[in-house]
């Protein structure tokens, strides 16, 4: 039980941090907020060059074949630097194709992901925001010859405009309910009948509402088994959630560091404000939370990597990080005082993103319900 980084994990963390300090200073995410493309192609291609985009993809398809813990370390650093790239959504979809796709799908898509040529995303949530519940999936795909025809609306889709392909979760069996009758389709984002509008949000990163009007998708693009796609979705959701949690933790740690630095140099009543216990203890508690967020999330990532049961671990990680990171970035603001509310201070870049990320991929209550199922057993048993 060695919960600390080993040497190669430390080395990855160090090298990624060094690169991003140089390649993604706070000016970059700030500039990308108003850029219509929504990400930095230069940084994206740099990441491809360094092998980061294929870090956890299979070696036979251009990846490095490393595990999810390594991807987590990378994600934490991207969160720390607020790197404006469609990394989380691309990896979420790519790992799903790597795990559940056909050999043809893997060979077609994964090398392009590793090389930076393809950006992917995924579409699960509709108007019902519940994230772990198959009942929240209602969009229908109707069979028509060799195609499935999609009609409906997906919400909160990351970087849809930049993406080449999108994994779409839908109902392929009319009249089905629950986990039955769900499929995952790989959809070309340039398909006829697709349109997207921005969901303008506090993070000012790219989220879309995507409307499907009779979008035709070949049956060959089903990822996993037709009508039996819910297990594929569950695995995708677990990976996406744990990766977002660690990204959020990485960003939060940086916000805390900024608060600590500020409090050492800002004087009040003739002393640095960091010497006042009210603030010192607030920051000490915040450090404990951030440490906890990382520990509990790396455990979830490690279990996913090992193929061990991980539903509970993923959910406790997300429930904990959503609550603690949100409070931690607020603490960082409070230490700064009024200046933290201004647009010009960089701290708000972290505050706005972490606050937005904490609302995504399942509520605290929903994740805790899954933890409760694990520790107390299901209801009505």
């Amino acid at each position, binding site marked *: 039980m*060695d919960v600390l980084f080993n040497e190669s994990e430390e080395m990855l963390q160090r090298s990624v941090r060094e690169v991003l300090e140089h390649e993604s200073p706070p000016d970059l995410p700030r500039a990308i907020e108003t850029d219509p493309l929504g990400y930095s192609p230069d940084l994206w291609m740099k990441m491809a060059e360094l092998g980061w985009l294929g870090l956890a993809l299979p070696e036979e398809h251009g990846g490095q074949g490393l595990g999810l813990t390594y991807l987590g370390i990378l994600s934490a650093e991207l969160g720390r630097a607020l790197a404006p790239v469609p990394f989380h959504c691309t990896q979420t979809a790519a790992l799903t194709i790597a795990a559940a796709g056909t050999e043809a799908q893997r060979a077609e898509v994964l090398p392009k992901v590793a090389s930076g040529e393809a950006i992917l995303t995924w579409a699960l949530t509709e108007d019902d925001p519940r994230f772990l519940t198959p009942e929240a999936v209602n969009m229908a795909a109707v069979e028509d010859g060799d195609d499935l025809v999609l009609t409906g609306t997906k919400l909160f889709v990351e970087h849809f405009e930049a993406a080449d392909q999108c994994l779409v979760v839908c109902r392929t069996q009319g009249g089905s309910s629950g986990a039955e009758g769900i499929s995952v389709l790989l959809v070309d984002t340039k398909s006829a009948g697709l349109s997207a509008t921005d969901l303008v949000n506090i993070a000012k990163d790219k989220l879309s509402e995507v409307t499907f009007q009779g979008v035709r998708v070949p049956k060959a693009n089903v990822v996993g088994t037709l009508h039996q796609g819910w297990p594929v979705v569950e695995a995708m959701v677990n990976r996406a959630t744990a990766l977002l949690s660690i990204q959020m933790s990485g960003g939060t740690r940086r916000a805390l560091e900024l608060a600590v630095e500020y409090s050492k140099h800002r004087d009040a009543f003739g002393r640095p404000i960091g010497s006042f216990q009210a603030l010192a203890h607030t920051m000490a508690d915040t450090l404990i939370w951030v*440490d906890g967020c990382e520990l509990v999330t790396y455990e979830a990532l490690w279990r996913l990597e090992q193929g061990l049961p991980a539903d509970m671990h993923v959910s406790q990680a997300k429930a904990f990080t959503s609550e603690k990171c949100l409070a931690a970035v607020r603490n960082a603001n409070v230490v700064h005082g009024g200046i933290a509310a201004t647009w010009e201070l960089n701290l708000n870049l972290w505050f706005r993103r972490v606050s937005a990320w904490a609302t995504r991929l399942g509520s605290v209550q929903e994740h805790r*319900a899954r933890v*409760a199922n694990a520790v107390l057993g299901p209801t009505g048993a």
Partner: protein
Amino acid sequence: MEFQFTPEEEALRTAVREFIAEHVTPEVLSEQADEGDEVGPHTQAMLGKMVERGWVRLGMPKEYGGQGGDLTHQFIVDEEFNRAGVFVGHNYGTGYTTIIKHGTQEQKDYFIPRMIRGEVQLGLGYTEPGGGTDLAGLKSTAVRDGDEYVINGQKMYGGNASTTHMYILVRTDPDVPKHQGLSVFLVPMDAPGVTFRPLKMMKDRSRPYGYTGAWAGESFFEDVRVPLSARLGEEGQGWELATSGLAIDRIGVTRYLRCTYRTDHVIDFLKSESFGDYAPREDPVVRDKVAELWTEREVYRLMTMRSLQMVKRDIPIVHESPAEKVWGPDHNVRAIEAIAQILGPYTQLTEGERAPRGGEFGDHLLMAWFVGIGHGSVHAMRDQIARRGLGLPKGR
């Protein structure tokens, strides 16, 4: 990173469980439930068998009288015995480790075998009526007079009715900076001038899965004359002894279990019990709260593993063990206060058939906060985290 025990560690756990099933008899358990810290004959016999297996003081460094074994192995052994309701850490805390490290041959020959047999019971005399957190500001004194020291002062909370010696920190030099003028003495309770007054605690009986006994004590020292050989370590070395002992005591299983039992036990209780037709486990609000407590507890488990691993890998502890010492006790308080609402009026019961788990929750409603006080309060720990972990300037 690796978040599981090795096959070797799992095999050890299995062996310990088998041993417990065989050797932790009702007689041993009944000795454990008795007041005081004496080691009863059945427990003594069982400890002998544990020594044969190398399970006692397993992970403690050899220089401190341990086996120099693996800390994770010790964690596993201690965890299993504690969960079985047997406390096997008697006498192996601060006093034991510092006597081994700093004692004269004569002191070691006298104390160590007697401590192992349970004939010597040390009471820790740090805190005084005037203060605890500001330990170096203590007022008790020892003044050299020829071949003797003359001790005067008062100590609080350490010791109980079965204590044979007080392990006290006192001032031997008033003219140097306050951390430098302190020394440790081992004072027999029967020395002329020592009086002991038992201090009844508000949780008025001992229990397994507990924090403290029902009794602590106050000891008074009035012109107590002790030989030079009663001093442990050098004159002026007291602060070093006190802090090294606290650091050794701070890592490991004991606090982890004290701070997680309530969450584990309420989950066990809720899984099987109902109140009439009402099963709290079905209530979504209760489920949400239990999941929150469970998650906090899991975070604490990982923090405990982190500190343990840092010691194993010889990585200096910066803020990690104080962090554990804030998170665990604070969780413990949140847990018992949440349990008090989940179990409602049943929580307050300490005896009888209506009391959940024999009244465990009622006892701990009284004493959960106490883990946040002993061994350095959570607020003193936050000061340490702020200064060492965050590099913040010293506050006031």
